């Protein structure tokens, strides 16, 4: 990694690593690195939010630590947990050691018995600051969001039995959200914010070509045009860029060189993920095939 002076360096790097980013996103990433503030990326599913974190960790040549959020995510799964089985064994082994209860307790609540979950892992990383990706934060409960506030501002975690653990290196934090619910203002205020939208025609073609260098121009154009047309419809599940890539890939795997009726019917499952959408578009088949 060269010393970062200007966002342009990042653009070049991302480009080399098959990530097509618009300038705004790059500026946000640049600020994330320079100001050391967490970056909140919002946007529809499949536009490369998670990928951005991955690429950033490659740029920094550091570890990517990922925490996938879900409803009911709690401290035990996100921060740390005691290794209960090992603790039970530990107590057994000490049975005849003549240690006092306090000493035994001190022993089984030591680092040896601690299972580090992503968040604790991220702040105890010793070599260099890792990239911490907190994915799909909107799926977690509000309680967890409130807990994050503390972590994101102080970068320390308190474990009652051990005391407070301070970050050796402040991790670079990227949070992503699909906006299925509004995140709290308090959290947003601690973060830089960027909204990633579906890319335009040109950009999307660029992305697909980057990912699938072997794709033929005609197929590429057709695929992207169709997807862009699909997005204009009111679908239950709007396809993202990752679906576009999947679709193009499956078409290529089946040896199609253009999108025709048969190709559509065979591969539609990789772009449209709901039966209603498929049946809706099947009725408008003819129009689509003739207009584009």
């Amino acid at each position, binding site marked *: 990694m060269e010393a970062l002076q*200007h966002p342009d360096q990042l653009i070049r790097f991302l480009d080399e690593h098959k990530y097509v980013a618009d300038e705004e996103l790059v500026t946000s990433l640049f600020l994330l690195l320079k100001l050391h503030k967490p970056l909140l990326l919002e946007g529809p599913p499949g536009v490369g939010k998670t990928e951005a974190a991955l690429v950033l960790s490659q740029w920094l040549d550091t570890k990517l630590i990922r925490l996938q959020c879900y409803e009911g995510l709690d401290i035990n799964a996100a921060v740390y947990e005691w290794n*209960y089985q090992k603790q039970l064994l530990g107590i057994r082994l000490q*049975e005849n050691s003549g240690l006092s209860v306090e000493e035994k307790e001190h022993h*089984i609540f030591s680092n040896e018995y601690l299972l580090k979950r992503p968040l604790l892992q991220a702040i105890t990383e010793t070599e260099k600051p890792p990239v911490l990706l907190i994915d799909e934060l909107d799926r977690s409960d509000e309680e967890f969001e409130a807990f994050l506030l503390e972590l994101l501002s102080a970068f320390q975690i308190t474990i009652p039995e051990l005391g407070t653990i301070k970050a050796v290196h402040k991790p670079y934090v990227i949070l992503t959200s699909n906006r*299925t*619910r509004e995140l709290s203002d308090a959290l947003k*205020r601690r973060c830089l914010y960027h909204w990633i939208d579906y890319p335009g025609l040109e950009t999307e073609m660029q992305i697909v070509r980057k990912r699938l260098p072997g794709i033929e121009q005609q197929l590429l154009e057709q695929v992207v045009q169709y997807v862009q047309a699909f997005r204009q419809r009111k679908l239950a599940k709007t396809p993202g860029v990752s679906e576009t890539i999947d679709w193009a890939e499956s078409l290529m795997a089946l040896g199609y060189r253009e999108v025709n009726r048969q190709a559509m019917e065979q591969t539609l499952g990789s772009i449209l993920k709901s039966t209603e959408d498929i049946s809706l578009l099947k009725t408008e088949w003819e129009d689509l095939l003739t207009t584009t």
Partner: protein
Amino acid sequence: MIKQQAYQTSSLSEGIVAFAQFARSHGLHVGIQETQDALQAASLGLLDDRNLFRQSLKALFCTSPEERQVFEKLFVLFWDTNPTDLEERKGKATVQGSFNKKANASLVMLGMGKSDAPEEEAKNVSGANQQERLKKTDLSKLNEMESEELEAIARKLCRQMAVRMRRRMKQHRRLGQLNLRRTIRRSIAFGGEPLDLYFRMQTPKKQRLIVMLDVSGSMDKYSYFLLRFICALRENFRQLEAFVFSTSLKRITKALQPQRLDMVLQTLSEQADNWSSGTRIGECLQHFNDKYGKRMLNGSPVVLVLSDGLDTGDAAVLGAELRRIQQRSKRLIWLNPLKGMQGYQPLARGMQAALPSIDDFRSAHNLESLLELENLLANA
């Protein structure tokens, strides 16, 4: 005084600070921290390039796609205004109007224009009989005096209701998962034998509630109280989203605070015609589904619709959209003030179309019927 344009400031730092104030005055959440960060970003050499500068400030100042749009306008307005063409610009639309934060305040005008503050306690309630009578009185048949009294009663009862519902939730708690951590810690004294088991308490899941209130002309007499009622509900359901609709749908969640409610109620709106013209329930529900559905209907909330079902739009749309909502909600409750009338039959076209998707169809014509909702919501 807030400087409105960049040319009024003498240095770049001053410009940034002024811009932060300018943005704040237009509803963006820009605090001292953000301003500091902006200055720091400026010192990183992000200034040479105008685009970079704009993007940096955008990442720092905005917290939602809507705010990002507003920001673009504000940025141009602040940095690009030339003193010479200021005269022309003055007449142009300000950004303020387009930002929904402010729009919320300019909501409502209902049948009763009340001026006195609602803070007074329930002092002039004259005995139990009167109370009981008022509770049963149809909301549309109240006079000014009575409505004040009823409001006081309502506030008291709603508060009690909120407390009761919370208590009920606590009693519902059962033993949850085994708390391994504590169990093991306490077992040390017994040589690792987990003699005492400790459990993790099951925290009651907070039910989310979405309320949609019909404020069209036909509901005029009721909407005032119903709005108050929603406000009382909010004290119990912290995660409550509220909407009003008639010809169009409007989100009022943020305006829905007891101290702001009177302001909401009294602010004469430019959209006052909403309140008296026809109702397009179907279209409003469609708007809800398209714009908010994804975000708000996750995790199966309870949906409460307060409407008389007199629809001037397409009944088929109403039916289909309501079904979509019902499929994603835990329970769809429809409260219809007309149902309290003797001999009422849900014959209106809109009501007919809606009925198949409704889980609970209730009346909402007096306070008592509203309070019955407690049982429904507590068991939801």
